[in-house]
């Protein structure tokens, strides 16, 4: 009967439906992501000028921070931080030029990750209106003012705060020496040539990871040494970094990273975006050689050399008793002192420190008279050390078999480390004195000298003082 008409109706109905009722399918094309150069109308200033405005505000008005209100100023710069590996978090560091930069600034933004929009080398513009500039954690920073602190720009404000240029530049790392570190050079992408990690952190069984050691809290701090200069600095990695469990490289070579300060704004830190910019392909390290007889289980009764410094004159350089007290660099020297306060001496003690000395470099040696190790058996060394905020300065115990006793030849002689001795560490309590342990010297033959060498960090603001006392060399 009406079958044909039913089918027509049926087919028509279905056809109409499928045509009329389309729902967007799940095949979406990649959207057009062509960027265009942002159109900024205000006045551009350099990051250096931004820094000057802040310093001017600090000097003229005594304010720690400068907030831009109703301002049409903006800065531009190139992104040098990369949070892809998680070593930077909610901050963008930008410097003024791709190569040979002068100034850099840190922009605090409550967005993670940032690399997906602001890759390494991307040129960006930052309109300053509404932002506050200050030295946050010691380095030039832009953010939002919250009382006396600088805080992050909200996620919703990101697109108005940091505008992307279409340009992505090749960043040329700026070569720098550790001794040239300066507060004005922070937030810059630098290259350290001929550096290595301290032997205690990368050699032997205790080879450390970047930041996955039990004692690493927030950051893993490692000692980075310059082979050329003999200087060292702190290399810092976040415990949230994806590479925190990667082992530190053991060789020596080139490292590209960002110069910044630690969280407290007190100490220079070098930070990498990720370890691929660390190329330590030279396996010949520049470590001092060691003389290591370990620790002795007992001490003999015979005293070969001893000085408790009780006969020294307070605040005068250590002298007499066969000592060689030598200033290799700077103005500071090993001197006698007495203190019965909380940081007390042991009667009269010896100390050296370059804090606030304004020396570019402070290196001081205190060297014993010659000891003949063939004349007896079972030689041991004991002494005590204490410190006062050692910070970037170091104290080393050294031995030389070939120094001829002439101060002029100290630096050319071969000095080996005596690693068995415990020397006070920066994080030890400043009021305490620490025993060196009974350092075994019995494996040494012939004659030689023992020396305590103080090395400042190169920035006397970050140096401290080491105290030394109760030195005894004994034998059976």
């Amino acid at each position, binding site marked *: 009967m009406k079958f044909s008409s039913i089918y027509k109706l049926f087919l028509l109905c279905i056809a109409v439906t499928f045509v009329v009722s389309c729902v967007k399918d799940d095949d979406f094309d*990649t959207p057009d992501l062509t960027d265009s150069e942002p159109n900024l109308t205000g006045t551009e200033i350099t990051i250096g000028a931004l820094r000057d405005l802040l310093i001017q505000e600090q000097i003229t008005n005594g304010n720690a921070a400068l907030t831009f209100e109703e301002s049409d100023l903006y800065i531009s710069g190139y992104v040098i931080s990369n949070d892809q590996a998680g070593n930077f978090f909610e901050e963008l560091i930008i410097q003024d030029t791709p190569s040979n930069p002068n100034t850099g600034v840190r922009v605090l933004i409550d967005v993670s990750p940032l690399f997906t929009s602001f890759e390494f080398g991307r040129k960006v513009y930052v309109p300053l209106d509404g932002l506050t500039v200050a030295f946050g954690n010691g380095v030039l920073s832009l953010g939002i003012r919250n009382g006396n602190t600088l805080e992050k720009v909200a996620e919703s404000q990101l697109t108005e705060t940091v505008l992307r240029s279409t340009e992505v530049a090749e960043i040329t790392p700026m070569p720098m020496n550790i001794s040239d570190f300066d507060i004005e050079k922070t937030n810059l992408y630098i290259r350290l040539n001929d550096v290595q990690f301290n032997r205690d952190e990368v050699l032997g069984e205790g080879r450390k990871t970047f930041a996955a050691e039990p004692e690493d809290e927030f950051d893993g701090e490692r000692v980075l040494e310059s082979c050329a200069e003999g200087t060292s600095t702190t290399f810092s990695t976040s415990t949230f970094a994806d590479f925190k469990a990667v082992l530190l490289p*053991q060789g020596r070579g080139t490292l590209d990273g960002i110069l910044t300060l630690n969280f407290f704004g007190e100490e220079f830190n070098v930070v990498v975006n990720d370890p691929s910019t660390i190329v330590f392909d030279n396996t010949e390290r520049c470590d001092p050689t060691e003389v290591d007889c370990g620790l002795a289980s007992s001490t003999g009764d015979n005293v070969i050399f001893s000085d408790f410094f009780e006969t020294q004159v307070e605040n005068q350089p250590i002298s007499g008793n066969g000592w060689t007290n030598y200033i290799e660099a700077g103005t500071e020297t090993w001197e006698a002192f007495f203190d019965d306060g909380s940081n007390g001496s042991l009667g009269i003690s010896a100390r050296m420190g370059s804090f606030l000395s304004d020396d570019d470099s402070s290196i001081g040696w205190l060297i014993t008279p010659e000891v003949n190790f063939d004349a007896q058996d079972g030689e041991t060394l004991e002494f005590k050390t204490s410190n006062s905020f050692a910070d970037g300065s170091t104290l080393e115990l050294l031995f030389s078999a070939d120094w001829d006793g002439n101060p002029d030849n100290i630096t050319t002689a071969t000095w080996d480390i005596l690693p068995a001795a415990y020397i006070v560490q920066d994080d030890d309590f400043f009021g305490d004195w620490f025993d060196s342990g009974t350092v075994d010297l019995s494996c040494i033959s012939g004659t030689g000298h023992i020396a305590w060498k103080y090395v400042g960090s190169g920035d006397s603001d970050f140096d401290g003082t080491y105290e030394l006392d109760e030195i005894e060399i004994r034998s059976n």
Partner: protein
Amino acid sequence: MITLCVVLLSAFTMIAQDAIVKGRVVDSNSSDPLSDVEIRIQGSVFSTVTDAEGLFSIIGANLPQGEQVLIVNGADYILQQIPITIQSGETINLDPILLVLDLSEVEAQIGIISLSDNELNQDEGTAFNISGLLQASRDVYLNAAAFDFSATFFRPRGLDNANGKVLINGIEMNKQFNGRPQWGNWGGLNDVQRNREFSMGLKANDYAFGDVAGTTNIIMRASQYRQGGRVSYALANRSYEGRVMATYNSGMTQDGWAYSISAARRFGDEGYIDGTLYDANSFFASVEKQLNEDHSLNFTAFYTPNRRGRSTAITQEARDLKGIRYNPNWGYQDGEIRNSRVRKIQEPVIMLNHYWNIAENTTLNTNIGYQFGTIKNSRIDNNGTTLVTTADGQQFFSGGARNPLGDYYQRLPSYFLRFENPTSYDYQLAFQAQQEFVNNGQLDWNALYRANVDAQGNPLPATYVIQNDVNEDTEISANTIFNTTLNENISFNGNISFRSLKSENYAEVADLLGSTGYLDVDNFTEAAAGDAGSELVTNLAQSDLRNPNRIVGEGDRYKYNYEMNANVLSGFAQAQFKYNLVDFYLAAMAGQTTYQRTGLFENGNFPGARSFGDSEELSFTTFGAKGGAVYKVTGRHLIDVNAGYFTKAPNLRNSFSNARQNNDVIIGLEEEKVQNVDISYIYRSPIVKARLTGYYNTIQDQTDLGFYFTENLSGLGIEEDAFVQEVMTGIDTRRMGAELGIEAQVTPTVKLKAAGAFGQYTFTNNPNLYLTSDDFEGALTFGDGTAKLKDYHVAGGPERAYQIGFEYRDPDFWWFGVTGNYFSNAYIDVNNLARTSNFTSDFDGQTFNDYDEDLARELLQQEKFDDYVLVNVVGGKSWKIDQYFVGFFATINNVLDQDFVTGGFEQGRNSNFRTIRDDKARENGPVFGNRYFFGNGTTYYLNVYVRF
């Protein structure tokens, strides 16, 4: 409904003393003969159905004598009760019996159609088998539950979908994965699913032993559809915006062939909830050949590919700022709504059914079913990384990004005000976050693409991709169902059934979002503090150690890849007895279930046989028995009692603790033990129909598996974060309560009705709980290893629901009805971990030094949702124009636009005394507040149809 007798009696030899009742049933309008009309002598066991010519006859020496009532009951027609006088040796010929089309029944069918569409909507575990309930049973209570209570997650007797069985042509359709029927696999085929047989609770069912929430058998067999067609169009603002549906059935033709075809399309860019697209097509075909009088062969196939954009539970804070329609899963891309979480189901089913009348009163029905295809659930994977190799050859994975959804907790105002005494800066951030959330709050697709390309637009390794979690099942089912009527009082049913499932489960990259590829590693795998060396870490992070650091593209499997094999062999036997005073039945079942996982990836966290290759084979033996009786006090007063005990294999999902990563079997896994008893009083008079039921149901040794991220694990030391699998075993629960349904036909046009459910669904013990994770070794337990859940309510819909309503039905074929519905006692799904000793324990496993018992009690109080009232209006009109029926049917739900919470859960991130206390105490709202599902506001549904 029960097909007691399919045998035609035309060639029957008459015995002298036999009485004969015969006749012919025709449509009052068209005078067409009506087949399959049920004819029954009231209060007796004598019944039959009409044949293709509309003819029937009941012959017997022992027909009840004297004045009797003949019930004539045809689907879609108004029931007729014809007084007759039966005398031995006499023949009563009723020709013709004119049946009048019951348009309300037609409308009810439309109602079924509208409701079962919603089932596509629901995530697993939320929807009850409402269309099963709707089955022509005119039970007032079930109708209320189906039509009016279903919008609230209401679950009759507190039972999950997995506690009910759905069969199609006698083949069980419940998925072995979670025990639940996948309604999406036959959604939109409502026209051809009108023949349903539903047995409530554990009542006798001819096809299967069934389960406590009832058994529905949907008959999709070409010969069972009445000749004719139907076209309908629906408009709605609930789940879809529009639906067209067309169906044509040939009926049984002269040469013994019958066929049926149906097609439907449902579509919408978004439903009531924002961004929930709906894109579903449905196709059905069935052909049946009556080979001879005793054999018939049917072939049925259906395919319903569908896509649904999903929504999610949101916090009160998000709801207050964005409203109940808020859905964080979507964003605009090129001006189009794009939902990141889409469920796509493509699982065609084909089946072959053989019907054999072995003897006069004996049938054997043998079925073979085959289902294959995929279910895919998409989401954003924001953890794309790159492999970095250092100058000295060490490797690590760099990258990963934050959750990009708008309602991520670090983007909401509460996060910025989480500390005491917020500063003006905090308020500024909170305000900006609020503005951003209110004005936008959706996904920024462009930002995701941008992350995957460089400044010149060249593709980079992926940070973001779209991931599909794919479930690729292939299942063969075969069963044979035996039915025999030994005599007029006794019938016997039995079946033997076998199912074999191979299920492949894997993640695949659905869309690279413009990137070059995705590095298949798990960047969340962290080196524990002190772990030396990155080699260990790079190995740990591998999804497949046999293919390390693979870059995957669109369509590639990644992350996890494993097979599950499940085989079930079962059988049941049942005897049914019908007598004048009492009907009763007894049934028993037994079964054997085996499961095995086969790892196709060797997971870095679980190297070797722990993840790769075959797992231990799990085997479960199940058995059960049930029985029940209907005692007919008089024709008007009936008492119905049912009781049963059976065991059930745990479902596949709850058998392996972390199937995506390893072969670990759940510790302490056992068969579930189900006990059920119910008793009903049924009253039927010409004016009043009522049923009152009391039920008591327990399930013991259930297993439940959950996955979440928590920040508060005690006893592990300072490291307290982990993504965990939470395994609960030995869960005992109890559901008890009462149901009432009553309706009164006050006048021929006005009907009043009332229904109510009053239940209590609680845990009756403290289940065992342990956690596993790739962040720590072995099974982590707390205190005595239990979660103190006893007497907590089992979450899921209101425990109490009441309805009063009325219907007006005009003789002129238009009608309308109004119901008022009151709901109460719905409870939140609690965080189980917070009910273990972990709650009181500090990082070192010791009790918090500031632990306060009274405050703890308050913090752990289970949230009870507010009571609410929903008013629903329904109405329709039908016309008969020539041979066409034309009509419309409309409902407006929640007329008063009542706000209500249908369900919710506590977040697992905070799981101890201090963090929960601190979060709840926050002046500006919790950061990890409870998440809620909100019910729809006022919605409409309008359906227009033509039937011929």
